[in-house]
């Protein structure tokens, strides 16, 4: 039962779609060198050195903190309490039928991160702001344009 405070120094991040061509880079252009290394493949993106260690740390941060809290609660109060909390979080994060209903504003996700207030209260994030709540990073806060695509992805079609 791990009581880790900070994420282990990660080799990389969970963002599998970030493809980087550092290991196969062409010496002049910096892009993928097909001539020397063959066609681009997905395995390139998980090579060490392609992703920043800080990114992995930031992505795993919230998860590590909740795991620490759950482990401490389990050893102090028993299994029932963390199990109940996990059950409540699972119930609260169930999606509605239509992804459009989740968005509070016309332009997209409301400032503050999410329209699911119950989930934020359960996670203890309802009264704090974090960098991810007002900065998009690589995601954009724009509206859902392809509803069919979102529905297909959420149902695994």
């Amino acid at each position: 039962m791990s009581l880790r405070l900070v994420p282990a120094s990660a080799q990389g991040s969970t963002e599998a779609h970030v493809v980087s061509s550092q290991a196969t880079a062409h010496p002049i252009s910096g892009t993928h060198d097909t001539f020397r290394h063959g066609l681009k493949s997905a395995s390139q993106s998980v090579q060490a050195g392609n992703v920043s260690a800080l990114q992995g740390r930031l992505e795993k941060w919230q998860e590590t903190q909740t795991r620490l809290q759950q482990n401490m609660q389990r050893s102090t109060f028993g299994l029932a309490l963390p199990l109940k909390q996990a059950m409540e979080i699972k119930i609260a994060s169930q999606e509605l039928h239509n992804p459009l209903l989740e968005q509070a504003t016309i332009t997209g996700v409301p400032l503050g991160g999410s329209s699911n207030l119950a989930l934020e209260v359960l996670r203890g994030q309802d009264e704090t702001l974090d960098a991810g709540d007002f900065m998009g990073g690589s995601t954009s806060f724009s509206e859902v344009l392809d509803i069919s695509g979102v529905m297909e992805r959420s149902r695994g079609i």
Partner: protein
Amino acid sequence: MVAAKSVEAPNIGFDFSNYARNQFFGERLQGIPKATSTGTTIVGVIFGGGDSGEEYGVCLGADTRATGGPIVADKNCEKIHYLTPQIRCCGAGTAADTEFVTNLISSNLELHALSQGRPARVVTAMTMLKQYLFRYQGQVGAHLVLGGVDVTGPQLFTVHAHGSTDKLPYVTMGSGSLAAMAVFESSFRENMKREEAIALVARAIRSGIFNDLGSGSNVDVAVITKNGTENMRNYEMPNERGIKSRNYKFRRGTTAWTKEAVRSLIVSEEIKSTTGAGKDQGGVEVVPVPTGAGAGGEEGMEIDT
């Protein structure tokens, strides 16, 4: 049937997609260019109480120069940031980082105070700052002097970019910290009066301004007591720009001309003063504006001596 949400990484706010490209460029060039950090002198001191007869307080001071490498980027920037009505934070390091971190923590402190029903304490601000900065492993380059007065009394802390903090009666940070600390070490004493503390802080900042290249321009002071904060922006201006000794205007007729034709591009101009989305409000007088006046229009364009 309820659809389960696909597992996605939480939004961390920062975009790392250029990391590999930057590493590649770093190898090709002399190294990855570092974010330019500002040279600064920021100080804080606790005064009052004890034999001085005055109430407790914290006095913060800062210079006003922002540098980008060897160039002065801002001659009169504000380095004393607002956190709560009774807590202020001076920031050294990368200017954008100090700005954003103090704004974010200020919002969080307001939310915290609203939910607790009492004014936020300085240790709360310090804890929020240190936990945020530790998470980013020092990549958020914010070195802060945090001071304020709350129910527990006057508090003064320093927070470094990696998340370490100190609690001290007098502190200095930034590139001019050694010059300012020299002044403090020789002249600080406990239970100073308010005027003494302000004079000491101004002297320490002046020492940083004159002895450190990264600090300069004016002295900003903020005095916090349990009744509130007094912001003295540009309390001292020891670097006023001097009047130029020679006149650089040319006498009319220096360059000869053969023909002159002056045509005004604006025939007439009417300004209607309105409010409310520009709609015409009845009963408001319409003032015609003489052409040629305005910013830089008339008085700036002297040709004759």
